């Protein structure tokens, strides 16, 4: 980009301009050496480089301000908040059931986890237990979602480090999971499928067969990725010893999930503080001692294999039964049904409330418009999301709407560790280290 200097007005997009902080260069491609050569090395040995917030390698709208000495990063300051949408505030203005449609939009790569964590909190406040079938389907859906999220992590890390084929393969296989989600709940992302008290609807008739087909297909895909990356010298060079963060660093900074397990601590809430019946499933918690980007790659890949095991066992555990609590004062009154014009309210239900039962209509109306009351109190529930511990701190004042919901988002917490990962390393390793944290800015900024 060249400067168009016509007149005296300052052009914010000029190639270079003087500011009170020093000379500012705008770089949008081009040759880095040429640019650096134009900087006087004696008077300006430290270069401050702004990365993002709109940069393809920062995993969404993350901004990193790096202070460089040559190619060595002296300091990194992550700046977040560009995707803040006020989800927590909005929740306070909708009823408890509508809350799932908000929280699902936080970490958009792991919507089922957001919904499940939130619903577990509401259910704990209500003091109810969901039917067994709902628990099993939640586990199956969560593990499918974990795979799809880890696939994106592999794909985007691959892309950022130049392994473009990995990006294509990762998104290709994620598509198969999104197809399952679409068949199960009508949506590929942000499904609001998990509801307080159970699920929005049961699996479709061919759901189990679809999931089985995927479970049979996926191991071959994983072998392909390993063939593509594990022995790849460039991949090894770019990840091994990069973005080092040991256990004490992780605990001090609150980092959980694959990053903590890549440092050698087998802390997985599915094992250590089980929920949704995870104690009944036979699976391993993969750990690694590398504490670097490579270790995180290995751990994520192995977690996908373990998730497949859990899904396989979950499908065996599926028994016919309800997927929503019996209590009609909590269960969403209308059930969805597939009509000639697509998914919608069950026609039988519409017939019932519109022409058979006045009481059913009143009940439907009250529950849908006003919602149910949740006894006052506060709870904290945490689940093992793909990026670490996803906690929900929910407070009720006894009303039909949340008084306060706070999401303890692993992306938000983990991003704090970027300076610890990257300072002292090379600029290129900021990208590899950041990608190994797998942050999702929708979750981080909420």
């Amino acid at each position, binding site marked *: 980009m060249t400067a168009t200097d016509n007149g005296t007005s300052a052009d914010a997009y000029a190639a270079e301009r003087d500011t009170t902080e020093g000379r500012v260069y705008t770089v949008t491609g081009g040759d880095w050496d040429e640019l650096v050569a134009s900087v006087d090395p004696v008077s300006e040995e430290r270069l401050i480089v702004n990365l993002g917030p709109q940069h393809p390698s920062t995993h969404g709208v993350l901004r990193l301000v790096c202070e460089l000495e040559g190619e060595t990063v002296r300091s990194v300051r992550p700046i977040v908040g560009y995707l803040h949408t006020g989800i927590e505030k909005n929740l306070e203005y909708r009823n408890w059931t509508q809350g799932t449609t908000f929280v699902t939009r936080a970490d958009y790569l792991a919507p089922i986890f957001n919904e499940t964590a939130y619903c577990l909190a509401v259910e704990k406040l209500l003091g109810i237990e969901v039917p067994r079938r709902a628990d099993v389907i939640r586990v199956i859906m969560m593990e499918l979602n974990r795979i799809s999220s880890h696939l994106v992590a592999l794909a985007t890390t691959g892309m950022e480090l130049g392994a473009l084929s990995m990006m294509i393969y990762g998104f290709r296989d994620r598509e198969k999971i999104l197809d399952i989600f679409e068949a199960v709940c009508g949506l590929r992302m942000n499904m609001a499928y998990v509801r307080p008290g159970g699920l929005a609807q049961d699996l479709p008739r061919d759901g189990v067969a679809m999931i089985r087909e995927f479970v049979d297909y996926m191991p071959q895909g994983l072998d392909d990725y390993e063939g593509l990356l594990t022995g790849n010298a460039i991949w090894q060079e770019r990840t091994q010893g990069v973005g080092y963060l040991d256990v004490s660093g992780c*605990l001090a900074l609150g980092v959980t999930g694959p990053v903590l397990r890549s440092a050698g601590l087998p802390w997985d809430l599915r094992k250590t503080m089980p929920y949704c019946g995870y104690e009944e499933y036979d699976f391993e918690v993969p750990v690694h001692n590398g504490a670097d980007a490579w270790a995180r790659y290995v751990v994520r890949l192995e977690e996908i294999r373990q998730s497949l095991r859990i899904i396989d066992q979950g499908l065996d555990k599926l028994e016919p039964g309800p997927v929503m609590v019996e209590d009609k004062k909590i269960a969403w009154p209308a059930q969805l049904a597939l009509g000639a014009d697509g998914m919608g309210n069950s026609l039988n239900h519409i017939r019932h409330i519109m022409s058979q039962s006045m009481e059913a209509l009143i009940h439907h109306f009250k529950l849908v418009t006003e919602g149910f009351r949740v006894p006052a109190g506060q709870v904290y529930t945490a689940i093992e999301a793909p990026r670490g511990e996803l*906690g929900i701190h929910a407070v009720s004042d006894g009303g039909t709407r949340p008084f306060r919901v706070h999401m303890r988002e692993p992306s938000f917490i983990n991003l704090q560790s970027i300076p610890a990962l990257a300072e002292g390393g090379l600029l290129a390793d900021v990208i590899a280290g950041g990608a190994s944290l797998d942050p999702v800015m929708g979750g981080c900024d909420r």
Partner: protein
Amino acid sequence: MTSDPTGTGSAAPDDVQPVGIQRPKGLFGVADTGDTSGFGGLVQAQPTAGDLVSTPEPLGGYFDEVVAALRESLGDDITRACVVDRGELTIHIAPDRVADVCKTMRDDESLRFELCNSVSGVDYPDQRNRLHVVYHLTSMTYRRRVRLETAVGLEHPVVQSATAIYPTADWQEREAYDMFGVVFEGHPHLTRILMPDDWEGFPQRKDYPLGGIAVEYKGAHIPPPDERRAYK
């Protein structure tokens, strides 16, 4: 008002009452609860405004052990109240003892709460000390969880920072400051984190409306939800 309504008050004067609190209102211009049956009106309790009542001891499970260990190292008056609800322990502490308590919780051999999971704010507009800060701690050694809670009033919303003990509290305390205006004493750089640096007000306080805030886009104005559509 002669007594402290929350039981969590500090030395703040009694006549300070939060003013200008707007109750959140529903859609469609509903001014009250939105209850159309009349039965909803029978419930008058305000659970978030009442006195803070400790659960009578023994608290059960590991809770007694945790509270006893904490009291042993920091004195009996360190806990203002210990509440057990839905199988979770909440220890209410003074805002100027947060760092001491966190340090003991982390380092005491019988406590060992290595991980600070979450720091969040809650605004209870009916209480004098309306801004609460809630810390969730996890002991990986003993597989225990505990919640610390402290409360401050608007006139002096200062809480001790836990960043020196739990560096992970850094961004979370910034978020609590950003959203609730709680000032964390001893935080290395307490600035806004999610909202723009020059934002005015603290968006997650209960008297801060949803919508109705001037936006810098072609003079657009988004009205608060209770004014958006009114079927009257």
